[in-house]
């Protein structure tokens, strides 16, 4: 699998199904290790109660941290949280935005200590649209998909570009111009003491910029110089200007002459023995930049800020765009180990120590109700719509279900709620008068938290109390229900017959089986 995506909403149309795995909705209890990388793509759910919503959002960072502590060294791409539903009842209600910002800040912080993390700013996509364009309420109510399906194609393109950016991001060498790039002013005119580096602004801005570049050099990025100057003037400035942070020894190579810069850069590539496509060229002069873009399109040429105080933002953009390091060296591994220890501590401090306590914290309430005139139409609808968790895919109408009830079938439906809300009726089981489970189905919305096992086990216990000793069941494969192929095996049923068309099971109900106490299950009779 290429990606496994942790999500809390319907996003399958955005990423497709080929080689992509999805978590259950807001479910982190399953973390497959057969994937190349993970993606974290949570979005702000719709909840008009901003207090509740803020509480929910504030749990995301704990969940992310917990996931992080389980994924070893594989890559995890985090898409930032964006609130697509900007409904604000009170003008001063900034609670949601604050919790969203907090999540993004914390996630970004994690990327600083974890080289296998990558933060993708989702707002760079959403900011292109108005909120009317972003949300299509019709599709939201049908599918729980927030982002309008009209934007699916745009999203795919945007994400492909992000993937390409990440893949092509590891540049090796930064080639710098000197005058008005590494310092303010022109060395040939202003002299060694006259150029702006250190002291008051703008010299201060160039000083900080050089300090930042020095860090880059210490982290393995090769620095080089390409400048139209007299080489001796520059060598003297490096040596004699006391505020100069970057000196001769920090540059692996330089071309300081009056030759055109395209030729110089080609020579630098040869001298350093690296490809032009792993070089980034920074120059304040737009004409020089245009020349390199034209002559050497493989070299990356970012725009240079017009004002020196913008240099720090420019630096962080440079790092983010070209010099994030992903290769895992021994030293990185050490850092990862350290991080892992930290993550464990964080997890211990936070609400969930492990998956079980995570599920416990959800306060899952399961209510089982016999089919009746209030829910029969919903049950019929589910038999029509449910594909993935549907053991025999028998489609039924309301009339047919009413007939079965009249014939003495036991039909129950399940409603699931947790501390974040009520999912309503999301599953059903059909048992014939001769105690055969003809069908069992559950909406994929609630899967992945062990609810399916708990539900069936509860029913089996109930039947046992009613004096039923033998039960049979059936699985019929469909193109879509393969994830349930061994569901009855998992519940301890015996396979009695198997053919291409179905699998038949039986089970003796000898005693009640205890169910994890963190599911609060009730039966309405």
């Amino acid at each position, binding site marked *: 699998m290429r990606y496994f995506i942790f999500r809390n909403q319907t996003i399958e149309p955005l990423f497709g199904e080929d080689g992509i795995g999805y978590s259950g909705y807001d479910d982190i209890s399953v973390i497959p290790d057969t994937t190349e990388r993970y993606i974290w793509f949570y979005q702000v759910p719709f909840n008009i109660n901003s207090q509740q919503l803020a509480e929910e959002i504030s749990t995301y960072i704990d969940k992310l941290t917990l996931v992080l502590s389980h994924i070893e060294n594989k890559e995890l791409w985090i898409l930032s949280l964006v609130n697509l539903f900007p409904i604000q009842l009170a003008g001063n209600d900034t609670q949601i935005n604050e919790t969203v910002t907090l999540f993004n800040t914390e996630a970004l912080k994690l990327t600083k200590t974890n080289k296998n993390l990558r933060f993708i700013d989702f707002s760079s996509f959403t900011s292109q649209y108005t909120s009317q364009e972003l949300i299509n309420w019709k599709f939201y109510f*049908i599918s729980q998909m927030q982002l309008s399906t009209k934007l699916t194609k745009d999203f795919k393109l945007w994400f492909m570009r992000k993937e390409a950016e990440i893949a092509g991001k590891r540049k090796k060498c930064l080639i710098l111009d000197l005058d008005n790039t590494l310092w303010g002013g022109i060395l040939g005119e202003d002299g060694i003491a006259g150029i702006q580096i250190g002291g008051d602004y703008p010299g201060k801005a160039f000083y900080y910029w050089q300090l930042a570049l020095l860090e880059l050099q210490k982290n393995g990025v090769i620095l080089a110089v390409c400048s139209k100057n007299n080489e001796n003037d520059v060598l003297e400035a490096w040596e004699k200007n006391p505020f100069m942070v970057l000196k001769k020894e920090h540059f692996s190579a330089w071309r300081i002459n009056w030759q055109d810069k395209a030729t110089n850069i080609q020579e630098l590539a040869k001298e350093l023995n690296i490809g032009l496509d792993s070089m980034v060229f920074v120059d304040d002069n737009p004409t020089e930049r245009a020349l390199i873009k034209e002559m050497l399109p493989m070299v990356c040429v970012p725009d240079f800020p017009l004002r020196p105080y913008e240099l720090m933002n420019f630096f962080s953009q440079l790092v983010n765009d070209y010099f994030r390091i992903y290769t895992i060296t021994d030293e990185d591994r050490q850092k990862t180990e350290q991080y892992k220890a930290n993550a464990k501590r964080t997890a211990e401090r936070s609400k969930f120590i492990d998956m079980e306590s995570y599920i416990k914290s959800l306060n899952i309430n399961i209510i089982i109700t016999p089919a009746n005139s209030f829910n029969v139409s919903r049950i019929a609808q589910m038999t029509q719509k449910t594909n*993935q968790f549907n053991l025999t895919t028998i489609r039924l109408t309301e009339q047919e279900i009413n007939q079965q009830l009249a014939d003495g079938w036991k039909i129950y439906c399940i409603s699931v709620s947790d501390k974040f809300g009520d999912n309503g009726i999301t599953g059903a089981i059909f048992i014939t008068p001769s105690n055969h489970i003809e069908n069992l189905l559950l909406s994929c919305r609630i899967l992945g938290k062990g609810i399916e096992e708990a539900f069936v086990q509860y029913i089996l216990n109930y039947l046992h109390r009613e004096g039923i000793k033998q039960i049979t069941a059936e699985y019929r494969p469909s193109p879509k229900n393969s994830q349930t192929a061994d569901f009855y095996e998992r519940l301890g049923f015996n396979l009695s017959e198997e053919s291409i068309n179905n699998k038949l099971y039986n089970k003796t109900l000898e005693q009640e089986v205890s169910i994890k106490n963190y599911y609060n299950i009730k039966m309405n009779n």
Partner: protein
Amino acid sequence: MKQRIIEIMKDVLEEQNIDINSTQDSLENWNSLRHLNLVSELEDEFDIELEPDEIAEMKSVQKIVDIIKQKNN
């Protein structure tokens, strides 16, 4: 129009063999998620707005053709 609908379906569902008798149960790729993409494509193509109950009824090619014909009248 029928042909155009089938073409869109082939494209969105990535299924080669679709004809007027195809149904949601007979096509492996026609799941609820692709169904949404299909609805969205059909809405754009025929410049119509499909209502949720119609979307739920669109379980066969024939039904889709019927619904869109009705819409266009």
